[in-house]
């Protein structure tokens, strides 16, 4: 076992254990940063696999995404810090069984399959290769990704922004009732949306 192997096993253990702890911790902020830790460990494994660019880029992309994830946790969770522990799960046994089954099936497949060995040369200029690919044969993929990202930006702004051109986005919104067919429960958006001048 050489240094690379030891490093791989450490990173792999971090990735799997922190990925598992995501669903066990009560604190939502901890959960999103545990997921980030899992991504960072996978990124470092990628560096070991001769993909330094992809690995390090995973680290920064995921750090940003999990930061935003943590913000949304605070916005949408009753109890973002897990001060009173709770499990919010459904079909729990089925989910565990599905997860274990998929892992076992994949592992079985992996163990019986024989993979051809054609490793990347240690001195290969992988970033240059990626750049050439982006600007050459895969140019259309690259530009399509641009359009896709534009569509994402526009869609997420339309869906999430409150102050639209046609008035506030939550005008007329009704919270769900506690019982089916009952009275709307919780905050009434009309009263809280800054239209106090209607009452004059």
């Amino acid at each position, binding site marked *: 076992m050489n240094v690379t192997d030891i490093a791989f096993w450490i990173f792999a253990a971090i990735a799997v254990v922190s990925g598992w702890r995501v669903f066990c911790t009560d*604190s939502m*902020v*901890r959960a999103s*940063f545990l997921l*980030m830790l899992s991504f960072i460990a996978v990124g470092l494994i990628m560096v070991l696999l001769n993909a*330094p*660019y992809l690995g*390090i*880029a995973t*680290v*920064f*992309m995921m*750090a*940003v995404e*999990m*930061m*935003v994830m*943590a*913000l949304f946790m605070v916005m949408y969770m009753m109890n973002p*810090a897990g*001060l009173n522990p709770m499990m919010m799960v459904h079909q729990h046994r089925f989910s565990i069984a599905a997860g274990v089954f998929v892992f076992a099936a994949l592992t079985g497949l992996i163990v019986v399959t024989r993979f051809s060995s054609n490793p990347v040369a240690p001195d290969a200029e992988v*970033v240059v290769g990626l750049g050439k690919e982006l600007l050459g044969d895969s140019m259309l993929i690259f530009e399509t990704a641009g359009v896709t990202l534009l569509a994402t930006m526009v869609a997420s702004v339309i869906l999430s922004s409150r102050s639209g051109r046609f008035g506030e986005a939550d005008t007329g919104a009704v919270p769900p009732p506690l019982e089916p067919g009952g009275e709307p429960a919780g905050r009434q958006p009309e009263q809280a949306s800054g239209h106090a001048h209607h009452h004059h």
Partner: protein
Amino acid sequence: MTLIALTVAWVAFLLGMAWYIAVLDGLWAAAREGRAPRAPLANPLYRCATILRQQSNLTEAPDLLNWRLAPALYAGLAGTGVALVPFSSASVLADLEVGIVWWGAVEALTVVVVFLHGWSANSQLGLIGAYRYVAIGLPVMLISMFVLIAAALPAESLAVPKIIESQRELWNVIRQPLGLPLFLLLGLSLSFRGPFNYADSADIAGGTAAEVSGAPRLVWEFARLAMLTAVATVAASVFLGGYLGPWLPGPVWLVLKTTAVLLVSVGLSHQLARISPSRMMTLIWTVLLPLSFLHLVWAGVLAL
């Protein structure tokens, strides 16, 4: 052996530069108040001793693990930032092929660490600092990435040593004049000083550090200074040619350039006024980001 020697050298460099920034800050404060500075060189050390003698504060039910980890990780990230920079053409601690990508990761992780620091105290003012910092820290990152990518164009590489070597004839600060000022703004944001002090400002009683005293506070304040040092070291290498220079040996040039960049940064942080976070966010997206686009186009056309 070289690994250990370089690590020790970089940690010593960080400590020395942190002391230097603290001295500059003291001198600046004295000049603003129109009084003669008292023991300006020893003052940072007195301050260290004072903080260390304090009791470490605790709050009700904090996230203690993250609260103690956040300052340590922040300082560690600053350390990995300087590790990318070579002292001379032969000595680089982290010889990463994708150095400036790692620098991007340092910026992103800094936002995470500062948020955690403000979050884990379970105190209102700390959280306000944390939320504000994310609003500014995220978009500022884009600007610095554009600026660094522009510097990578003539070097045809993402490694910091190659970017330095590409400046043998002409430093990037002349070739790409907008780069250094934009990058210095990032430095102020990463160590939240002056116009970019949205995390630890006085209007929220110290923000993320409002509840922090004793050794954790010492580590936190050191980490802020170390992060500014890391930014200055990277700036000195990417825009001012790093260890390149006539007559003197490489490491001396690097130290000289870093101290000069730090002097300018500290000056900016004491001179510029702060605006409200929402205005700053608009300013970043609508003024600074287009400026960095412009900078990239300029660098691109020049590199053809």
